């Protein structure tokens, strides 16, 4: 795998083109804002004792109004257009540079059934995009951004949507089958003290690991076989270094990993075309998913699970 710096330098080569698009789109937004302000000023000073002056002002206001409406209509288009170019020029190049066998399709997403199989919490609304697909040591691997929400309607008919999860979901298909379900969840430091009565909970033999995660499994021996000290160390190191929270489910021939990161593929007109930190985060997420999955594949092969 290539290092982050070398990939970043490659992506950086496309920066100027993208920066020009961003500046152009930004200029359009600024012009629309100017038109709105000007329209407001003209319309609020429209009244004049002279009919001629008033007619001129009204004509000016009408002209501004037409430009303003056109500008506002183009606003969302500008944003969408810029994001499309960003994903193509930056994210796609970045992912291809990381691993040539990976394909990135920004408009496709992960099926909601796949997310449900991982047995994370329930939701009312599901949305997914930015699908990355490829192979890892011959095993199919997919990653995509997922957004789940609770939708509540009060007695007055007002609907509110609350985000439950937004981040990156990774799914790998193993050749071996894990018989049962293994869940690695974030440890609820305080509440966990009172709700640790789950019969499937396993006390792991690493105090450090227990600080960050709790493990639930229907087959404790199998779970211990998979969660070797090397794998636990990898998991701890990542969470400590990156401060990114994540959860894992291993079930049947699949491993699901979700990172609670918010959106990692999006950009804005108001941000520089190439954000070093955002790309570094994306690199860390993909690299860790590949590294950990590879470690799990190795353990599963060695232990003949």
């Amino acid at each position, binding site marked *: 795998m290539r290092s982050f710096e070398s990939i970043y330098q490659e992506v950086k080569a496309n920066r100027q083109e993208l920066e020009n698009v961003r500046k152009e789109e930004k200029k359009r937004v600024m012009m629309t804002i100017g038109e709105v302000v000007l329209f407001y000023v003209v319309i609020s000073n429209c009244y004049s004792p002279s009919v001629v002056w008033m007619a001129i002002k009204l004509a000016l206001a009408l002209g501004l109004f037409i430009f303003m409406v056109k500008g506002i209509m183009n606003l969302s288009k500008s944003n969408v257009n810029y994001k499309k170019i960003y994903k193509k020029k930056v994210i796609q190049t970045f992912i291809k540079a990381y691993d040539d066998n990976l394909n990135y399709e920004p408009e496709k997403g992960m099926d909601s059934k796949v997310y449900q199989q991982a047995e994370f919490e329930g939701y009312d609304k599901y949305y997914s995009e930015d699908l990355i697909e490829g192979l890892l040591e011959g095993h199919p691997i997919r990653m995509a951004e997922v957004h789940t929400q609770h939708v509540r309607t009060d007695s007055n008919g007002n609907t509110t949507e609350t985000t439950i999860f937004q981040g990156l979901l990774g799914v790998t298909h193993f050749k071996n089958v894990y018989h049962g379900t293994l869940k690695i969840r974030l440890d609820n430091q305080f509440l966990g003290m009172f709700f640790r009565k789950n019969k499937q909970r*396993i006390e792991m*033999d690493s105090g450090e690991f227990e600080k960050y995660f709790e493990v639930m499994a229907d087959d404790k*021996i199998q*779970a*211990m*076989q998979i969660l070797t000290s090397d794998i636990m160390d990898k998991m701890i190191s990542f969470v400590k270094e990156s401060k990114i929270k994540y959860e894992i489910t291993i079930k049947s021939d699949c491993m699901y990993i979700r990172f609670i990161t918010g959106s990692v593929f999006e950009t804005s007109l108001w941000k520089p075309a190439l954000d070093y930190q955002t790309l570094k985060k994306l690199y860390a997420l993909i690299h860790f998913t590949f590294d950990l999955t590879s470690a799990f594949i190795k353990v599963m092969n060695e232990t003949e699970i």
Partner: protein
Amino acid sequence: MGILVIVSAIVLVWFFLTYNSIVMRRNKIKQAKSSIDVYLTQRFDLIPNLVACVKGYMKHEQSVITQVTMLRSDYQQTKNLKSGATLNKICNNMIGLAENNPHLKANDQFLKLQKSLRKMESQLQAARRLYNSEVTVYNTKITTVPTNLIAHLFHFKEEELFETEAEIKENIEIDW
């Protein structure tokens, strides 16, 4: 008076809950210990096959067979995890040495056996880790305040952690 009754009730409830949780933890250790025993027994049941498979390539097989038979019967009688661990290490050494033998590498029976033994070894290691983890939780519970009061009252004793193979100091040698 009312307050005294409430406080006594709270203390009594805490007492029962704590006592039960310690017993529950101790049972988990027993369960984990029996898992180790199950995996060790399963593994040792394959020893005759292993010896039969590799003996043609051993110079002094009789001494090893005697040593293995002795340790196996000792384990079956005493269920002492330490002697089980020593025997297990001999098994691992035998497999390790056999793996370097080109004749055995091509032997189907040995390869199948090696696969089974490896799988069992992995299960055994997992069972040991589970046991150690249960023991750590139990020992912490009975030695920390305030549960140590109840542990002391009912003579709950600290359990010994299972040594990993690397920590077993016995020198086990097999002649080939």
